[in-house]
């Protein structure tokens, strides 16, 4: 049953949708010359949506209800996890809009529709993280993907960018097909697409029938594609390299987080009773991602490609948290992702500032000796890379610590050891960038061209990585409470 209050509760989504409508008209009539105004309008709508995400208490107080709230015939779920995720998605997307402005200004490609597409993708992600039904899940996922296809190919004049877009469309379409196919099996057997009903049905089932297991595997494979876990990772390096840098930053942060939340929700809500069936598969995904991500990154000369492999490795670490399960495991996942998003945003800010002969470049060599020409950004980058490598006392270390702690706590010490070993290997390629920045001489023409947005985002991220150690409880408490919300008692 749909109640009037449901509409109040999805105020963030409504605001975003209204924002899309408004800004698309603005973009159409104002044109690229006044793209800045559209950007500002989109940021404004993000701020409004952010307000609506974090201050809807009056509604829930009014209803006297507690989390989770089920809306629209239980299609839509509003709980602490979805709010946590929406918060981070908004932070990441706002940061990326700021960085995009800097980036597209460098190549004179400031299009008014760009921020609108980002907002559409964000709207899709909002539905993904709040999905409580396979139909909602699929709709959200596709809304998001459609916007991402265009974003990947946004540098129209660049063949690589178009290739990235096309590759992403085709592979993503296949994965969506696989997802739908899997869903049809699940629907065929259980007769419902609703997560809560599935949960009840699955927990009553003694023996898992083959058909449902196949369906689940298909669904997991499709989501593994979205989070680029090995062996469904092939698209990531190419798309990451080809897409414009801020779009790559977007791919690596917000959509991945949304897909991950979705995966976690699926595994711990409808499929919770089937954990013996999926845990082996997830262990494989995790180990394969960590190992491949660590080794394949070693040989890269393009920083975006390197970051693609690094993000594959990081998905492996995150999946350890999923395998560990329970409140601690999920807390580790949320905390890890939160730290990772901020860390990555900072790194991409520096990457976007990197120029050679007034053109953006993404070759690692071009970082040579930049500590001499732009010590501030080089220093931020060093902190961020050390953090990504998991060196204490930076936040990245704690992220890994929490994940491995959860693994050991659940008896998966071997996974923690594999994680530790692969993080030593991946430390090598992070160190390489630091080495090039600090130990080599500057190259002709290469520079870090910073502006306020880049400096602010890189600085904020670096300070967050250093400052985490002072108040680790603040964030870990929050994620612990959120994690408790995923698990159905």
């Amino acid at each position, binding site marked *: 049953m749909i109640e009037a209050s449901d509409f109040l509760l999805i105020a963030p989504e409504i605001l975003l949708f209204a924002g899309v409508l408004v800004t698309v008209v603005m973009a159409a009539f104002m044109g690229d010359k006044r793209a800045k105004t559209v950007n500002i309008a989109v940021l404004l709508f993000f701020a409004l949506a952010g307000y609506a995400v974090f201050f809807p208490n009056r509604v829930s107080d009014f209803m006297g209800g507690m989390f989770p709230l089920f809306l629209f015939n239980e299609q839509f779920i509003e709980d602490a996890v979805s709010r946590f995720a929406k918060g981070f998605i908004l932070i990441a997307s706002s940061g990326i809009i700021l960085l995009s402005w800097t980036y597209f200004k460098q190549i004179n490609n400031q299009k008014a529709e760009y921020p609108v597409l980002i907002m559409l993708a964000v709207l899709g992600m909002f539905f993904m993280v709040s999905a409580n039904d396979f139909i909602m899940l699929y709709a959200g996922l596709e809304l998001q993907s459609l916007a991402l296809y265009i974003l990947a190919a946004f540098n129209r004049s660049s063949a690589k960018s178009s290739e990235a877009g096309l590759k992403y469309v085709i592979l993503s379409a296949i994965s969506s097909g696989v997802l739908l196919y899997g869903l049809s099996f699940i629907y065929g057997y259980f007769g419902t697409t609703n997560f809560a009903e599935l949960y009840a049905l699955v927990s009553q089932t003694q023996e898992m029938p083959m058909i449902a297991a196949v369906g689940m595997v298909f669904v997991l494979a499709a989501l593994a594609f979205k989070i680029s876990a090995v062996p469904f990772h092939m698209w990531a390096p190419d798309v990451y390299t080809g897409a414009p840098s801020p779009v790559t930053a977007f791919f690596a942060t917000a959509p991945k987080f949304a897909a991950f939340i979705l995966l976690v929700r699926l595994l711990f809500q409808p499929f919770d009773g089937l954990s013996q069936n999926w845990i082996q598969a997830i262990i494989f995904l995790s180990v394969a991602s960590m190992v491949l991500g660590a080794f394949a990154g070693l040989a890269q000369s393009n920083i975006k490609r390197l970051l693609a492999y690094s993000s594959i490795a990081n998905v492996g670490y995150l999946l350890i948290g999923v395998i560990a399960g329970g409140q601690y495991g999920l807390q580790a996942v949320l905390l890890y992702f939160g730290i990772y998003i901020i860390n990555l945003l900072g790194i991409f800010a520096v990457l976007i500032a990197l120029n050679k002969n007034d053109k953006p470049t993404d070759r690692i060599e071009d970082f040579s000796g930049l500590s001499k020409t732009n010590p501030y950004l080089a220093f931020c980058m060093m902190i961020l890379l050390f953090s990504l490598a998991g060196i204490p006392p930076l936040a990245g270390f704690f992220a890994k610590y*929490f994940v491995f702690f959860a693994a050991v706590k659940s008896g998966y010490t071997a996974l*923690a050891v594999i994680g530790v070993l692969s993080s030593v290997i991946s430390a*090598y390629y992070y*160190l390489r960038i630091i080495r090039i920045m600090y130990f080599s001489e500057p190259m002709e023409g290469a520079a870090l061209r910073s502006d306020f947005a880049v400096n602010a985002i890189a600085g904020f991220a670096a300070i967050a990585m250093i400052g985490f150690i002072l108040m680790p409880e603040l964030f870990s408490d929050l994620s612990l409470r959120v994690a408790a919300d995923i698990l159905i008692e």
Partner: protein
Amino acid sequence: METALSDIPLLSVMTFFPLLGALCIFFIAKFTRLKTDASKVIALTVSFVTFLLALAVFFVFDNTNPAFQLVERASWLPSFNAEYIRGIDGISLWFVMITAIITPIAILNSFGSIKKNIHEFMIAVLILETMMIGTFTSLDLVLFYVFFEGVLIPMFLIIGIWGGEKRIYATYKFFLYTLLGSLLMLVAVLYIAVAFNTTDMMQLIEQGVPIDAAIWIWLAFFASFAVKTPMFPFHTWLSYAHVEAPTTGSVLLAGILLKMGAYGFIRISLQMLPEAGMLFAPMMIVLSIIAIIYASFVAFAQTDMKKLIAYSSVAHMGFVTLGLFSMNEQGLDGAMFVILSHSFVSAALFMGVGVAYDRLHTREIARFGGMASNMPQYAMFFMIFTLAAVGLPGTSGFTGEFLSLLGAYKANIWIAVFAGLGIILGAVYMLSLYRRLFFGKQDKEDVSKMPDLSVRESLCFAPLAVLVFWIGLYPSTFSNQYSATMKTILERLVQ
């Protein structure tokens, strides 16, 4: 005095004071045109004040009490059973003192040899000091790990930015080797946090760890400490790191960083996991003896003087682990003395190499000769430290090597025979180094024109020379501080 001081968290102040100094330099240099000389002065002052703070700790410390003192606690990560705990006992007191003594000397020494990015260098050294003191005063395993591992970043930069030609290979090898060891230790820390619901070292020492778990935990910690110490066969990073590091980096590396491994062996492998320590003692002793003999031979074959001293470090650290795992009073005592002696002697020897390198920009032993005639002061100081390294009675080296040999003898006579061989070999390579550098005909023109030590350089050597004789002639000043703690460790080992 004591009541007034106990109100302030002395250990935290001492630990973070250098970091504060680093931040000062960072911000002053960022917002004003700070002269490089000014940052040198700030760094030296800060490290000297840290030394004074360490002295204050030294005098507040009650050496009749074997327990941890000046303990500070604060909530830090309760959901992961980790706390902010600092404290000090007779053992860590000396490690802190070593750090506080050597860092100002190393900074003073760097004035001549570091020519570029001086602000950044001073910042890195001061952060390093915080990390090192933090390691020695942390009583929570997670906190210990954070500091232990945090050392990597400043050291990586010190070698990488201010190092020699092949510094890149050296930094990688140093960083990845130690990281691998430390991360295995991290798994052990995680296991402890999960299995015992605490990472408070004091509590863990008290309640003990069941032997079946302790074996694995011990091995994981061993991986980390063996790389850091370094023990044979995990020592290969050391020669590269030393050769490529700037003099100050080598001084800190040999003087303090290597001691973090030794400290870990004492605090965790012996004190926290005594049963497992007993179990693995034969392995440790065999590895130590191999290290002593093998490293001595390798040292003898070197043509680069820095490499020679680096390998002699491996041999001396072999005496440390030999003494520790002889598991008797003399052995532990000897190990502590070798630690103290080696810190001061190797720091001085590396500075000695730096003196020659600054003047001639080479470390080839064959390029030098007959320096005794034109650099008498340099020759004198180098002689003192060479003899201390060889273990001449009256110097610090003798006290340490004699006691650890005695400990080894008590454990098994053959161990002592082999280790004794190491002492003879040590005399061979050190004295031959000295002969080749300082005696013989002075037929090289550039060598004969080298000026003798400047006042600043003498100031670096003098305090270390005093300490070398002090340990050699009146060792009880040092052993009095830790004997009470050592006794309790031994009692648990003997049980």
